[in-house]
């Protein structure tokens, strides 16, 4: 991809994140932090692309490690955030 285009996406994503997070009530900060962490789990897609194009055994091993870690980030982030928000809802009635 064109480097400048990537920079544009980077900038717009930064503004999107800032605008969405900026006016959040304080009680939601912790679950939202956890939710953003879950979204970082999308790194697993990059890891899958790397493993999918790995040629040597070393690359496969590192790729396997990367996909497993990324999947753990995504799955763990989802479960933990969901549990926090479920508890939150009960409290609020």
């Amino acid at each position, binding site marked *: 991809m064109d*480097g400048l285009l990537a920079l544009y996406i980077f900038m717009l994503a930064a503004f*999107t*994140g800032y605008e*969405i*997070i900026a006016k959040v009530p304080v009680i*939601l900060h*912790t*679950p*939202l*932090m956890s*939710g*953003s*962490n*879950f*979204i*970082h*789990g*999308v*790194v*697993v*897609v*990059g*890891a*899958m*692309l*790397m*493993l*999918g*194009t790995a*040629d*040597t055994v070393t*690359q*496969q091993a*590192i*790729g*396997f*490690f*990367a*996909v*497993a*870690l*990324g*999947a*753990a*980030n*995504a*799955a*763990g*982030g*989802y*479960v*933990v*955030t*969901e*549990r*926090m*928000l*479920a508890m*939150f*809802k009960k409290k609020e009635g």
Partner: protein
Amino acid sequence: MTLPIYVQGAWFLGAALFIFGLKGMSSPASARKGIIIAGYGMLVAIAATFLIPGLQNLALMAQALALGGSAAWISGKKVKMTDMPQMVAIYNGMGGGAAAAIAAIEFAKGDAHSLATTVLAVIGALIGAVSFTGSSRKPIACRRRMRSMSCSP
């Protein structure tokens, strides 16, 4: 690598679902719905990646997904509410570890041709590795601090 339009479209949809999900999570009434929407976004993105033609090691990929995903799913269900911050820090570090490993493969393949991509890969590996090792130490320091004050990662 030019990706087929259905993969690009699915990734685009996944990104949109992430933003909707985050938006939902930022208000108490829709917070729970928000994480579920974001979860669908992740599933769409991962499923689409499997459909890219010419990818090798698909079986290895599925195994790694199952292994990492199920281990984290179970530990996430089991962890005590008071230990949540450490758990989030650990998962966050794992994502950083994945990013570092991706940069490592890029180097192993010799994909980093120009100076700019080399610098980006080094920075990526560095940040990823710091985040991985940093969060593996965090729970210890965190637990010590928990006695006197609250702990946030």
